[in-house]
């Protein structure tokens, strides 16, 4: 069954998009990550123009994150104050990011920059996760009792930022720290959200836990809360500046990913934490290699269409 995507301007198999949404949803249910970082490259592989892929994924993330954020809000896991400071950074960064996309598209190197940032980030995250989970698996084989319950030591950066001005009390997280840090993390993630069409949870959550020092559950809840608003801002900006949000594409992806996420959550209960993490690390690393090869292997077409002025057809 073919469906015509109005903004992408192409006819594509409905079940292919639904399937990709489903697979990414399954993985995000399994791993507890947003999955946006997998979705954008996959969309590009099936021929969706990169700028449309990124913008439509942001739109899809609004939906995916809002259902999670709603659940966490009811359980009292959202630190609104922290969320709003990060959000302020996120909106600032998102606005910069969208303008950056505009400049890069005009220069014709948007796809290149996007892939380089992806390779760097996925390589870093995938590599670190792979090493960490492998170590855990090896350690549990040896049954080393001393390895149980890794203590989260306060990060040096965290201490440094605790001394910075603009101190604030974050009751829900039980923290008294400078607002500059969550703001700048929000800015960086906001830029990436626009550039890559990702929610940024896979960077934000570790940063909130290990660097800011928030409790894990509050970090996840707060992260989802700010993702809803950050990606809502990116979606709006993309719609206004680049006109590349394909609502139809986003809705099909959403439909697929919600179904997939339910199955992913069920599968997740049957696997151990470190097994899940090493699996995710392998997927991320495989994707990194694929994207890296795209950058260095001689392309089949040396001449390609550059996006027209003012956005998509």
């Amino acid at each position: 069954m073919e469906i015509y995507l109005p903004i992408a301007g192409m006819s594509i198999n409905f079940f292919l998009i639904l399937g990709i949404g489903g697979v990414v949803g399954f993985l995000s249910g399994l791993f507890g990550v947003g999955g946006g970082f997998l979705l954008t490259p996959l969309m590009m592989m099936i021929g969706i123009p990169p700028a449309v892929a990124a913008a439509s994924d942001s739109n899809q993330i609004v939906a995916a994150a809002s259902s999670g954020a709603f659940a966490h809000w009811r359980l009292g896991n959202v630190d609104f104050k922290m969320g709003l400071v990060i959000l302020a950074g996120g909106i600032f960064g998102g606005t910069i990011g969208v303008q950056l996309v505009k400049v890069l598209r005009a220069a014709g190197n948007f796809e290149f920059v996007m892939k380089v940032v992806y390779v760097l980030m996925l390589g870093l995250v995938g590599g670190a996760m792979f090493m960490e989970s492998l170590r855990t698996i090896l350690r549990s084989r040896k049954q080393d009792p001393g390895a149980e319950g890794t203590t989260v030591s306060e990060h040096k950066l965290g201490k440094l930022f605790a001394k910075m001005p603009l101190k604030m009390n974050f009751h829900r997280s039980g923290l008294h720290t400078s607002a500059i840090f969550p703001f700048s993390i929000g800015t960086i993630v906001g830029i990436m959200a626009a550039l890559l069409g990702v929610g940024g949870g896979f960077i934000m959550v570790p940063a909130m836990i290990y660097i800011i020092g928030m409790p894990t559950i509050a970090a996840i809840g707060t992260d989802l809360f700010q993702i809803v608003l950050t990606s809502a801002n990116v979606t709006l900006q993309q719609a206004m500046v680049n006109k590349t949000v394909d609502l139809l594409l986003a809705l099909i992806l959403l439909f697929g990913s919600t179904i997939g996420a339910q199955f992913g959550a069920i599968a997740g209960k049957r696997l151990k934490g470190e097994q899940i993490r090493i699996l995710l690390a392998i997927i991320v690393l495989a994707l990194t290699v694929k994207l890296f090869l795209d950058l260095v292997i001689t392309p089949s077409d040396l001449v390609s269409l550059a996006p027209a002025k003012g956005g998509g057809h």
Partner: protein
Amino acid sequence: MKRILPLFIILGLVCLWGAPAVAITPEAKQKVVTAASKNLIEIGLSYRGDQIHFFGVNPAPGTDLIIKLTAEKDEEIKFSVKGKVGPFWMTVKQYDVTGAPFMYKIHASKPIKEIVSEATAQELELGYPAIRHKMKMHLSRGDAAPEDADKVFQGMLKIKERANLYNIVEDPARLQVEEGKLFKHYFRFPPAATEGRYQVESFCFQKGQLVGYGKDIIEIKKVGLESWLTETSQNQPVFFGIMAVLIAMGAGLLVGVIFRKGGHH
């Protein structure tokens, strides 16, 4: 000024007289009666391209036929040319190309160069060399190289042919002529053919001279939801963005509520 004016007129007349050939005006030739199976293609939700059959009557039996499908408007396209920078392949220059049709298809009863002279082909824009001649390239970024013109033209043909927007078929089997008089064939409009007006021109040649001409107009337009989404996203981007966000939030909350009832948490 009064003295100069007659001079200009004489000069103009000399130029006209000295012109190599009198321009061919296809509309002045005998009309070829043609018909299309339909003149409007609607892009709906399940659009996957369309096919239109064309029929026509040869003014004289045994004439050679060339039928050309083009978009009414020429396209302004930007092409990125990739090059190696260190170990990476990235865009190193950009060309703005004007004068190339968005869509270009030809059906001919035999190879074009056996039907018409190069000059006539160029004038009537028949065949890829004629497109190449008409197309203009302007370097907008990077350093020009002599082989670029050819590279960009070949790259464009490859992209267009892959999208099934360009092709040239010089085969009597594809352009059937019944008893030398009634001809029929079909053009396929791929999904990449966007909204707009397209023209199908039928040229009849006898010994390289144009003897008949017919023209059909095909319009492609988005309808229903497709049309509304496109119009709204381009003309009311703020409203479209807010709507996209609200629909996504609503869908997300709805999903959350549905699955909670299913006893997931």
